[in-house]
């Protein structure tokens, strides 16, 4: 019975396909896989916006939206209606075509990456041989969309914001990819499905998630930080810092296009979170062997929501960085650490299983982490600032 519930979507897809003429089956199969994703994640987006606003409100000792519907849960509807009916303003000197294409490309690219994310057991749109590579390749298209948005607006602020965003995204893409390399090394495959399957077994009640190894934990933390930066979220939201460049590259967008940008950004965040889950947190696998009766997609979305909450929490907690701090952090801390982490994963692979390799790899990671952060501190990053007030 749990198997049937677990596979209910897969089974119903096959059942539905039975009614379709054979010639059209591939098309309908694709359609049946894609459409639910196209519905589920924007829905998640809607939920997240209200969740985030309410969560942030609580953290800042206020209520957050609470007027539309019970407890304000209809707020996203209101937002949607507002953005649809708002006037779509395009600056006179703007490059119209590129201005139009930018949000579309962003959303398309953000949606494309869901093709390789396994949402549950046997629930993936395309089990690509080079799935992780696909994820990062398509993810890199976002940068181009950001540039198009910033450049086509013909506004200094938006261009500056776009340049900042691209510089940041390129800098953090490197640790992001390198952090996932350890998993690829361990799993021996670039296919997301294979990676999750590798993690979906148990020793006793404990799962084989990669996050439960020293290199996996390091990789996960690096991945999470880099993902925050990739999705331009606090504390790395310099490209859209209100105090500096107002709203960054989408300053000249309004109405529905603005909403598309918002959607694209959140979709990107979900996608990277989902990738983090797939790579390090066992994807749809249950955390304990006795919990496997709960359907796989439930686990996936539980984990996804947890990560999203972590993101909201981080946003509510940490202050924004300075641009040079941001760059230094990427190139002088994250990049070397992820390289050392790869080395550590190699050491792990070639050492015999046992306590010794735990010790060695942990020591390697911890020591390099400490020495790298010392290196950062010498350049007076994150030092205690002292102010002299007028007495």
């Amino acid at each position: 019975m749990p198997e049937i519930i677990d596979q209910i979507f897969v089974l119903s897809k096959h059942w539905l396909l039975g009614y379709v003429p054979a010639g059209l089956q591939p098309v309908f199969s694709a359609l049946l896989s894609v459409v639910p994703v196209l519905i589920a994640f924007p829905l998640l987006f809607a939920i997240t916006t209200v969740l985030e606003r309410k969560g942030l409100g609580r953290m800042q000792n206020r209520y957050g939206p609470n007027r539309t519907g019970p407890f304000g849960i209809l707020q996203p509807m209101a937002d949607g209606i507002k953005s649809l009916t708002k006037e779509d303003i395009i600056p006179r000197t703007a490059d119209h075509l590129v201005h139009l294409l930018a949000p579309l490309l962003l959303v398309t690219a953000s949606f494309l990456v869901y093709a390789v994310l396994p949402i549950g057991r046997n629930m993936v749109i395309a089990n690509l041989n080079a799935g992780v590579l696909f994820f990062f390749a398509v993810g890199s298209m976002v940068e181009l969309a950001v540039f198009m948005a910033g450049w086509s607006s013909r506004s200094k602020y938006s261009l500056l914001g776009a340049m900042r965003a691209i510089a940041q995204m390129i800098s953090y893409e490197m640790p992001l990819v390198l952090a996932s390399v350890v998993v690829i090394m361990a799993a021996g495959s670039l296919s997301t499905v294979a990676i999750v399957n590798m993690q979906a077994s148990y020793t006793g009640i404990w799962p084989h998630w990669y996050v439960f190894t020293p290199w996996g934990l390091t990789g996960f933390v690096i991945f999470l930080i880099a993902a925050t930066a990739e999705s331009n979220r606090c504390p790395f939201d310099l490209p859209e810092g209100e105090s500096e460049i107002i709203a960054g590259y989408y300053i000249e967008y309004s109405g529905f296009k603005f909403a598309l940008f918002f959607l694209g950004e959140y979709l990107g965040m979900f996608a990277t979170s989902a990738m983090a889950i797939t790579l390090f947190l066992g994807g749809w696998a249950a955390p304990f062997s006795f919990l496997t009766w709960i359907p796989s997609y439930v686990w996936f979305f539980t984990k996804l929501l947890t990560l999203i909450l972590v993101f909201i929490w981080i946003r509510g907690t940490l202050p924004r960085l300075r641009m040079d701090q941001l760059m230094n952090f990427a190139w002088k801390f994250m990049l070397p650490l992820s390289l050392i982490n790869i080395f550590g994963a190699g050491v792990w692979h070639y050492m015999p299983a046992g306590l010794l390799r735990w010790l060695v790899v942990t020591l390697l990671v911890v020591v390099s982490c400490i020495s790298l952060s010392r290196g950062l501190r010498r350049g007076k990053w994150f030092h205690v600032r002292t102010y002299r007030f007028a007495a």
Partner: protein
Amino acid sequence: MTISFLLLAAITIAGTAAAMSLRNLVHCVLALTLGLVGLAALYLQLGAQFVGFTQILVYVGAVAILAVFAIMMTRSAEPTEPHGSSSFQLSGALIAGIVFAVLAWAVSSGTKALQVQTLQPEASVNQIGVALMHGFVLPLEVIGLLLTAALIGAGVLAMDETRGAR
């Protein structure tokens, strides 16, 4: 000669042709990106998944962005570029046309003799990895060295000279 091939070929050619002929440099780069994505799709169609994704990652994610940065930093985004003399353009286009004609002739006269493989060969990531680590180790090392050298070289070249001299 399938529909999808023709479609992708059309996209690729349209993109690249636009990239080479538009006046605004940013448009050129964007069109180029379109063309290269089309090319990547063609690789996918040929069964070379890894190469296709690498193409997207490298060209869309890196080279296009790099080109855009270069355009921004050299202030050549505005279409102020005076085109060369028309004879210059004409001769260039003519030469390119002749090259195409000759290549097309070569292709059409050469491929008749070829035995064409009809089975789809496989190039999984695993196989590529194994090949890279066995038969192609030396090129891989050389490429690694080249990329390192290029990284350092590009950094040094682009460095502000007043800062570099310090």
